[in-house]
């Protein structure tokens, strides 16, 4: 059965993830060509609906859709009727009248993408909803690791930093464990949500055992989502949790979803070292998002409203 929406990694099983990765790998070949264009989605409309700032996600979705020959429209709340008070529902219904094949949504509130999927006949891709999930980021992370390490079964991934405010962490924990890896989350106790173990991760509060990790995934301190002082100071955070040359072993792979705060969660020399695959992650963003759009749109009937269809068929 084809997927209708991509709202959460929870909705995918290992087979579906592997199918998307394989598709992404085949698209990687296209990215290497001089003329980077496939006719797959010619004549289909893709709407980028971003209620939050973004560099990587938005541009890579745009490039992915254009590479597949879709027509892309970018929508942002500033300079639109949202500034006049239009609700998310009305905005989505208005934009749906243009008959887009897919809507890519980023929104500051958890569950926004799932709600949008109920208001539109288009396929909905969650490009980040609050602190909830960022599934395409997790897929491109799995893709990047696959390229470096092969199968993830039995590999140890440490996700370090502000877990509490990170949708990337939540999606990554789900995706990495589905692919057979052991995930450990590590950070100041105030930035690790109680009960995160339920998602399948082990919790540590110090980096003492960081050397056991095959992969170290550093997260940014998400100041924009912090409503209160969760840590005493960035200085003390750096002293205990910064990923730097002193703490890393030579074989460990370092990942970061960007944007990087050099010298805070990760030392500049690590960002620039060959251990870091941060640029490879950005590259993977395009092909993985192409694969997601392909999964959702290629073969699916265009624009037929299915109000009674389940969120994920």
């Amino acid at each position, binding site marked *: 059965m084809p997927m209708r929406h991509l709202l959460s990694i929870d909705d995918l099983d290992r087979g579906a993830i592997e199918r998307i990765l394989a598709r992404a790998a085949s698209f990687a070949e296209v990215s290497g060509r001089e003329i980077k264009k496939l006719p797959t989605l010619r004549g289909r409309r893709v709407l980028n609906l971003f209620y939050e700032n973004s560099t990587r996600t938005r541009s890579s979705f745009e490039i992915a859709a254009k590479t597949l020959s879709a027509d892309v429209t970018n929508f942002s709340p500033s300079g639109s009727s949202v500034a006049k008070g239009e609700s998310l529902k009305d905005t989505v219904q208005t934009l749906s009248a243009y008959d887009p094949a897919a809507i890519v949504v980023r929104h500051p509130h958890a569950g926004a993408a799932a709600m949008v999927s109920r208001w539109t006949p288009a396929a909905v891709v969650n490009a980040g909803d609050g602190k909830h999930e960022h599934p395409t980021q997790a897929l491109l992370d799995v893709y990047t690791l696959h390229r470096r390490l092969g199968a993830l079964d039995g590999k140890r991934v440490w996700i370090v930093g502000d877990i509490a405010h990170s949708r990337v962490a939540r999606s990554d924990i789900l995706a990495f464990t589905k692919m057979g890896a052991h995930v450990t989350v590590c950070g100041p106790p*105030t930035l690790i949500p*109680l009960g995160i173990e339920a998602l399948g991760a082990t919790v540590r509060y110090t980096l003492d055992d960081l050397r056991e990790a095959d992969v170290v995934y550093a997260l940014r301190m998400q100041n924009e989502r912090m409503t209160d002082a969760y840590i005493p100071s960035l200085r003390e955070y750096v002293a205990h949790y910064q990923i730097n040359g002193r703490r890393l072993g030579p074989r460990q792979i370092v990942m970061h979803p960007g944007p990087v705060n050099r010298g805070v969660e990760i030392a500049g020399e690590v960002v620039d070292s060959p251990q870091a695959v941060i640029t490879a992650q950005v590259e993977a963003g395009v092909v993985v998002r192409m694969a997601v759009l392909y999964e959702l749109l290629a073969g699916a009937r265009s624009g037929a409203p299915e109000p009674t269809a389940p969120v994920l068929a």
Partner: protein
Amino acid sequence: MAAAMLTGMRAPGADLVIRGAHVLDPHTKIDGVHDVVVRGGEIAAVAAPGSAETPPGAEEVAGEGRRLFPGFVDPHVHLRTPGHEHKEHIETGTRSAAAGGYCAVVAMPNTDPVLDSAPLLSALRDAAERDARVPVGFMPAITRGLQGTELTEMAELREQGAVGFTDDGKPVVSAGMLRRAMRYQKLCGGVSRSTRRTRRSPGAASCTRARWRRGSGWPGSRRSARRSWSPATRCSPATRRRARTSST
């Protein structure tokens, strides 16, 4: 409390035999006349009266007709250094502690400036090393300036020898802040002490279903927070009124 965190123990431990005193120690349930042998400052033996031998070089103390207690520890004293030395300072405070039978004290952070940073703690420990008459432990603030809004650098303070953390007579303003402080201390193995109840309700909660809360990152309502905010616990009429209006 680990002895390593206390400062001001310059005198070598004494060798003593205290004979025939009425020993009282509720903790070990001793209540009777005994001889007590002290070696190197530590209790080496509690023996029947008249039976303890005097080690060579040890001082004998006649305890007949007197009471003998374990050394007292006062975990809440104000040595007023820095900032209020006209009221008290490390030497006077610890002298009076010694005179009253206290063998260790823990100083509160409501000084001026507030004891909330590692450099100040380090300076105070140096001063105690020099001036204190009994071992002193320092308990820095949980929040900067005792203001209840930002956590102190507890991991670093702990490395500098903080015995625990407290906002002293001030309540930590919100239950959420207190909970965060206690969670943060997993990093440094410290203990916090709040001598007053929190002043504000636990804060907004938008969902109570644990699985959804963890997955979505939405703030949840925790049972512990609700319990700590039971109006039945001791609080002023004003906070009780607030509790009634803010309970959901």
